[in-house]
């Protein structure tokens, strides 16, 4: 009797379940695109500023101030791009 009872199955309706799944998938895709866009934009701006500072510094090696800002902005840009990559990896793993 137990085995017979456990073997009973009913067919569950799929429409609402599939609709909810598709909505979750679409939301996840939008969230990922938004995060990528924001961090990519920030990283690109920082990298451009850093590169511009580096190029303007090159002819005159006696100015030390631009070196600090160039280094800071370039490191900040590279760090942001690294964080972006890390975020992508963690998102995939989750």
């Amino acid at each position: 009797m137990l085995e017979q009872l456990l073997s009973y199955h009913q067919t569950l309706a799929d429409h609402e379940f599939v609709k909810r799944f598709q909505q979750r998938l679409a939301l996840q895709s939008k969230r990922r695109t938004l995060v990528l866009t924001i961090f990519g934009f920030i990283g690109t701006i920082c990298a451009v500023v850093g590169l511009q500072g580096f190029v303007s510094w090159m002819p005159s090696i006696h100015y030390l101030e631009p070196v600090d800002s160039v280094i800071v902005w370039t490191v900040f840009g590279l760090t942001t791009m690294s964080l972006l990559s890390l975020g992508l990896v963690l998102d995939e793993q989750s």
Partner: protein
Amino acid sequence: MNDEHLIARSISGDDSAFSQLVRNHQSALRQFLRRITAGDHALADDIAQDSFILAFQKLAQFRGQGSFAAWLRKLAYHRFLRVVETGAQKYEQPCDVSWQSLETRDAVEADILAEKLMAMLSVPERLTITLNCSEGLSHTEIAEITGLPLGTIKSHIAKAKRRLNDFIQAEAVA
């Protein structure tokens, strides 16, 4: 279209193919989860949703070793274990099932009844007896999904059957 074709199309970027996979497998997966969550339909559906999302993300890793259904159950089982670890699911609870309801032959009522009976069992017992008696899987197939040793699986199934049969007989006598 069979699972292999749908999986290949999903991997190449066809989202409608994966939606069809969900349609094909959602009923069986949700029923499996309803049994191991002892009738918590909301929790079962949440875990099923998470499992399909995970399957979508990891589809390229599915190498076709075993069936897609078995792989889904493996994902769902591990997701369920996370829920158990948080304490969100209680198990080994008293079961409020009467003898009269045990004699039902309606598939829907019997399914719901089977879900309620699972509340009496521990998580490994629910899992193994559901995969064996409800899903019809062999002990080896259950071992592939759960990672449990064969001897342990047999022991859990035997213990679960003994507990449920004892309960049914006690209800019959009462």
